[in-house]
């Protein structure tokens, strides 16, 4: 096991820069999730750490050792791939043990490790099967077994669950978390799936355009997004945004837009530099909007477009002043589409963003 550090790492492909000034410290035994949209550079970062992609500039360390220019086999990392990357002509046992055989590990030790991984991942019945005789979930467990037996300093997961169906994804997510806790190896996990990001990681790294937009514990990133990008990216359905301005009323500040005027709770007020009249964006998570019985000064009035019943929760798509907002409310009797509805929000759960997208709340920190 070992810590991992990236120092000012940059990666160019031709004239395109896909990773810029990437700085990150991953503690020994920590599981860090890199999350972001397509093309944000998350897989490239993982591949640079594995040695599968060269680093244009900057330094990569595993433990105390600089590995920036070392070939993959000298880095002591193991990787689980999105498409499993199992050798089709080898059995599960052959796939799991190949890396050890190439490293000339004694046969008895190989057998011990294969048995150990098979026990943890419940692979015993699969060991003599070839990949084509297995389901996607089984193949992914073999791929994890292959990584585990290497007993590497760092595990790398590159969207390992993306090819699985929703049910299997949930099951495998649980297995990965259990496996990582049990072996305690430092791990970097790349995903675009928020559920995986929120549930698996000790810390989240939110990336956009090759830059870190926020690093923090999943719940902190969710509760206090550092900027509008993170606020919109983390959370399903995404946060609702309303453009408006700040207005001072005696000693208090209020958010004012064409559809809403709402006083800001003291702890949600921006710092002292905020000025009356400053253009801001109000952010409110769908789960922080509730249906109100009657219009009130700080409620949003709109028309229900669509109600998506998901089980315990219903997503109400409401058109307010020409923009569509989503409210996630407990399922129950809901207004019919086309009906006028009122949405109220908890002033203590509002988010404010400056014109440049940065959070105006004092407990949010940009990366």
């Amino acid at each position, binding site marked *: 096991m070992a810590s991992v550090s990236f120092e000012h790492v940059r990666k160019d492909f031709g004239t395109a820069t896909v990773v810029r000034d990437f700085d990150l410290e991953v503690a020994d035994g920590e599981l860090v999730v890199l999350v972001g949209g397509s093309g944000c550079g998350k897989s490239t970062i993982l591949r640079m750490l594995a040695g*599968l992609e060269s680093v244009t500039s900057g330094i990569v360390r595993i433990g105390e050792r600089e590995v920036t220019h070392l070939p993959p086999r000298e880095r002591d990392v193991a*990787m689980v*791939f999105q498409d499993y*990357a*199992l*050798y089709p002509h080898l059995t599960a046992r052959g796939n799991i043990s*190949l890396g050890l055989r*190439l*490293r000339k590990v004694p046969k008895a030790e190989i057998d011990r490790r294969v048995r150990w991984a098979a026990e943890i991942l419940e692979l015993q019945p699969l060991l003599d099967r070839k990949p084509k005789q297995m389901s996607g979930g089984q193949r992914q467990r073999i791929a994890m077994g292959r990584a585990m037996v290497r007993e590497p300093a760092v595990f790398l997961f590159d969207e390992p669950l993306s090819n699985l169906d929703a049910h299997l994804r949930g099951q495998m997510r649980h297995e990965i978390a259990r496996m990582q806790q049990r072996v305690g190896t430092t791990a970097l996990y790349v995903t675009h799936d928020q559920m995986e990001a929120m549930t698996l990681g000790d810390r989240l790294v939110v990336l956009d355009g090759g830059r870190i937009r926020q690093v923090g514990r999943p719940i902190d990133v969710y509760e206090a997004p550092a900027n509008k990008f993170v606020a919109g990216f983390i959370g399903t359905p995404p946060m609702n945004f309303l453009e408006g301005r700040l207005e001072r009323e005696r000693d208090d500040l209020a958010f004012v837009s064409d559809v809403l005027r709402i006083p800001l709770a003291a702890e949600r007020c921006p710092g002292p530099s905020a000025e009356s009249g400053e253009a801001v964006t109000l952010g409110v998570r769908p789960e922080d909007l509730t249906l109100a019985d009657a219009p009130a000064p700080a409620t949003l009035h709109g028309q229900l477009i669509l109600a998506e019943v998901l089980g315990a929760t219903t997503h109400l798509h409401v058109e307010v002043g020409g923009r569509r907002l989503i409210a996630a409310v407990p399922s129950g009797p809901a207004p019919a589409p086309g009906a006028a509805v009122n949405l109220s929000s908890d002033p203590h759960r509002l988010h404010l963003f400056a014109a440049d997208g940065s959070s105006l709340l004092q407990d949010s920190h940009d990366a």
Partner: protein
Amino acid sequence: MRRAVFYVVLALAAVAFLYPFLWMAATTFKSPAEVGGLSLLPDQLTLDNYRLMWARAPFGRALFNSLFVATTITLSVLVFGSAAAYALARLSFPGRRVLNTVTVAVLLVPAQLTLIPMYTLIVQLGWVDSYAALIAPFAFNATAILILRQFFLQVPRSLMDAARLDGMGELRILFTVFWPLAKAPLAMVGILTFMGAWNEVLWPLLVVRDEQLMTLPQLLTVFSLGGGAGPRALATKLAAAMVLVVPVVVAYTFLQRFFIESLASTGIKG
């Protein structure tokens, strides 16, 4: 009814293709009196034609030469062709695109055009009347490189990444990961190369004059041209032709599964 007509047409076509070959095979077992007939069943079965053929020219040695030359050429084309294909398909290096284009361009040059320059080269190297002269010009093959490159392009990148993380170098990746995946295209390239090398006549006629180094088709050609006339001579020549054909037919019979697979294969599954 339509199916019956279809099978009749197929049967007629099969007879048209098979009969000459079966007649040739049957004639090699006939006595001189029967050689002119169209029957496929000899009245008197004899091996005299084979005995005579074996006695009049070193066909045993020629068989060994052909096997050695064709096998060496095939192995060489598979090893060097796949290595070149791997590099062109999966490695990044300056000039890769130019090399790809040059490989395709080589296919556009007719083989006859290079005969004289190649012959001159062989003479200058002092390789006339040697195995090197028979093998070297065919040890590398642009068609093989292109076929294998096309297949290697389909191998997922993650498989190479996994192999590198497992500790493999490029050669090991080629021979222990790519080769097992490429059985079908390798078999196709192998069969085509072996058959091409086995049947080659013109080049051996140019560079080999020593009877002990002659390949089977070469010796057969020389034998046919100077082996006399009449039914006995014809049957003896046909016996020599059978010795030439049988190994290829046997090899194809065993390898045809791979051959058909490679023609039908579209990529890596499962």
